[in-house]
């Protein structure tokens, strides 16, 4: 828990120089230089982050304003105003990130549980290193891997899904011939966010008090039951936070998406067709080099929307964690 430093209760009236004052009624708190320096530097760091955030926000808002009133002729594609232009991008961004989370979170939790509770120690350690290594691969490489390896590899699977399970709305045909679909993007994003969610979950699972694990085992819990009644509930706020960090990366990911998708401005939930919605970040990257005039403002405005989405997502995750604060085990 962090506590905000209270300023010492000193009288506000200016002390006239030269006149010895009666000591203030509450004795003055002793201020040590070390404390001052430390509290000063933490305060500065805190202010710095707020200033940076404000600077970005002001830039986004100021540059976005012309976009909201942009003329139809300035907007690329069939869209008639900014909102109808940005809506498919918002949808694509959230949809791709959502697919990535659905794939990555269960996998990450299972990997983290394996490392912390099932694997022999040496295997666990090397597996942990490998997972952390995944996080160091630049996203361009993931994009190349998505185009060069993953998309051709999964294309036959997609064909099979469309042929045999086409009745399921998400798998409706016609199937993409290249495998470069929103689902492929989701898988690439899932691989990218897996390491961060796994490492954080692993740290959290290791924090589970031994006492609670033993309590569960002494009640006659199997190892899996011990995990469900002691480890997972205790780690729940941490898992949510880890997922949100992963989601943040998935929402903002540019290169991998831009490389894998051949985008169009549509809103569509189907996973396997060649027409796929684009994401905000990829759209900015693809169009910025040729943009001019209000076009630039429109792209920046879409960036503002991404900023807002991220804000809302973080807000929701905070709310989820806080909802059961009393049961978090932090007390």
């Amino acid at each position, binding site marked *: 828990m962090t506590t905000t430093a209270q300023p010492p209760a000193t009288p506000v009236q200016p002390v006239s120089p030269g006149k010895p004052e009666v000591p203030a009624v509450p004795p003055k708190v002793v201020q040590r230089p070390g404390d001052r320096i430390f509290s000063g530097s933490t305060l500065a760091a805190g202010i710095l982050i707020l200033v940076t955030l404000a600077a970005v926000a002001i830039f986004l808002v100021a540059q976005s304003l012309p976009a909201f009133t942009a003329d139809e002729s300035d907007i690329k594609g069939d869209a008639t105003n900014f909102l109808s232009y940005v809506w498919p991008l918002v949808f694509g961004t959230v949809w791709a990130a959502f697919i990535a989370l659905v794939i990555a979170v269960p996998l990450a939790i299972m990997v983290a549980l394996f490392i912390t509770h099932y694997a022999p120690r040496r295997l666990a350690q090397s597996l942990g290193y490998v997972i952390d290594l995944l996080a160091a691969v630049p996203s361009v490489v993931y994009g190349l891997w998505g185009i060069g390896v993953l998309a051709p590899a999964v294309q036959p699977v997609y064909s099979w899904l469309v042929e045999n399970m086409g009745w399921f709305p998400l798998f409706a045909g016609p199937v993409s011939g290249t495998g470069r679909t929103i689902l492929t993007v989701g898988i690439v994003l899932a691989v990218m966010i897996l390491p961060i969610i796994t490492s954080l979950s692993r740290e959290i699972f290791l924090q589970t008090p031994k006492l*609670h694990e*033993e*309590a569960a085992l002494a009640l*006659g819990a199997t190892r899996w039951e011990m995990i469900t*009644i*002691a480890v997972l509930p205790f780690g729940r706020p941490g898992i949510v936070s880890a997922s949100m960090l992963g989601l943040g990366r998935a929402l903002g990911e540019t290169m991998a998406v831009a490389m894998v998708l051949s985008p169009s401005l549509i809103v569509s939930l189907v996973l396997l067709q060649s027409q796929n919605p684009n994401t905000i970040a990829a759209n900015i990257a693809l169009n910025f080099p040729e943009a001019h005039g209000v076009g630039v403002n429109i792209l920046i405005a879409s960036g503002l929307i991404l900023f807002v989405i991220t804000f809302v997502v973080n807000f929701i995750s905070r709310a989820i964690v806080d909802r*059961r604060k*009393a*049961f978090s085990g932090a007390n």
Partner: protein
Amino acid sequence: MSKRIEVKDLKVYYSSFLAVEDINLTIEPRTVTAFIGPSGCGKSTFLRTLNRMHEVIPGARVEGEVLIDGDNLYAQGVDPVLVRRQVGMVFQRPNPFPTMSIRDNVLAGVKLNNRKITKTDADDLVEKSLRGANLWNEVKDRLEKPGSSISGGQQQRLCIARAIAVSPDVLLMDEPCSALDPISTLAIEDLIEELKNEYTIVIVTHNMQQASRVSDRTAFFNIAGTGKPGKLIEYDDTNTIFTQPSVQATEDYVSGRFG
């Protein structure tokens, strides 16, 4: 409900280190047996072997037999999970699950293995177990509050309620009062006195007065020196141990002239 425990030639090892040596004793049903002895003499380790909780510690293993009403806990094919459902345990520090309500804490063991229980049965069991742990009147109005929201002494009684909710045959207590204040300690000691009517209770304690207050039989463990295995020195009626022990070391320990 209550069963006899027989321990035959039990040795406990941590990897290759012999921690506890050749223990033979018999614990009668519906009695309280106290284990006393200096720190590190292996009494907690030995206690854990009575429900195979020592297996949680990497490298710990056992040779010998522990019979509960004639069934060897260490026979081939015995599932430690089932052993622990028969032999409940209360730990040194209160450890209710903070992520569960008081009610769910009591039901935690019962709900294991997907056993279904109707709401009325669950309500009855919660009340019965909490009454059994002398906690009902203090928490009946806040059963939905988190298990960590009550005082340390109440939490320890909640842990006892959780342990007895699964109707075990034996209740093991590993220094259950060492983290509690004197009043909470008294509450737990009174509770042990009542629980004795239904369960076989084994309690490890560093508190000599506590051993003499609550137990019928007392086992004194000692250790020859660091790196040497712990041993059962003397096992007799509590009265005998505290008034006329047959071994000098026991007398030195209970009278405070130890070491």
